[in-house]
């Protein structure tokens, strides 16, 4: 049997344990309430990313198959790398060709302009531009004839 003092001591020990537990529960509740908003935000973001990832994996696999390749061996990054390289090569060559065409157009424009101005040629007979190959050829022939 325990004496009265002993009983009181046991009670106070229990009370201390209960108080500690209550404090622990209250603390957890506060912590959870502070975190619940973040938790739901995190869950929705992860869910969105998961859906996006699944969808993109499926779509890129489909693309790889459409290009006649095996998605197990040919990865999406390989496909994109190849297409990027192709687009880059194409664009560079396309720009070069456009520049060439533009330069040719400008050259012709210059020739026309000179022809319009009616500059005299070396021989003094023709009035078209001396850059014109036909004119140059004719002039050379005339010069040769003179020499003869």
């Amino acid at each position, binding site marked *: 049997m325990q004496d009265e003092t002993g009983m009181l001591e046991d009670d106070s020990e229990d009370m201390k344990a209960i108080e500690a537990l209550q*404090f*622990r529960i209250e*603390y*957890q509740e506060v*912590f959870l309430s502070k*975190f619940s908003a*973040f938790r739901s935000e*995190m869950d929705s*973001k*992860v869910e969105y*990313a*998961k859906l*996006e*990832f699944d969808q*993109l*994996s499926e*779509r*890129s696999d489909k*693309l790889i198959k459409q*290009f*006649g*390749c095996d998605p197990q061996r040919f*990865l*999406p*990054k*390989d*496909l*994109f*790398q*190849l*297409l*990027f*390289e*192709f*687009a*880059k*090569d*194409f*664009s560079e*060559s*396309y720009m070069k*060709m*456009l520049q060439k*065409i533009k330069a040719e157009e400008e050259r012709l424009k210059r020739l026309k302009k000179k022809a319009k101005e009616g500059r005299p040629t070396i021989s003094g007979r023709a009035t078209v531009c001396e850059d014109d190959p036909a004119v140059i050829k004719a002039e050379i022939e005339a010069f040769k004839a003179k020499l003869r």
Partner: protein
Amino acid sequence: MIIPEPEQEKLLEAERPKAEELSKEEQYLLEIIKVPGIKGHLDCLEIKFHFSERFLNLNSSLQSLRKAVVGVEDNPQLKQLFIMLLKVGNFLNQGSNKGNSLSFNIDILTNLKQSKGVGVHQKSTMLDFLLNSILTKTPEVAQFAVKLEGCQEASKIDLKVVGDQLRNLNKQ
């Protein structure tokens, strides 16, 4: 953050009656272990602290991939270009056993500058023919390249790594 292990906690608790004699660091640890579930809570805080950055990285990779996928899928000019490429290839290979193909290997795309025709066409590359054909007949096809701009960024992204990042976020 330093958190005492369970054994260290016991040792610290034993020293609590004479806490004043302990060093400042030990006193700090004694205070820390008073907080219920401190380790779990600090882990949560750590996740919260890094979550935005991790999610932004993941989302940025996903958006780059999406841009590239859409750029290829929604690209009628690219389809038209491939049809032209097949025709040009068949034209250049007239007379050879490759002259009547119904498809071509995707690897050819990076070799167009080097691939030459046969016979009278052997001085021109496939790319020359293709460009000529586009410039004279269908210049709008050249727009395909603009839609493929996203491919550069996507070519640096490994889908497997993105999947691992996502699984890590999901675990937390």
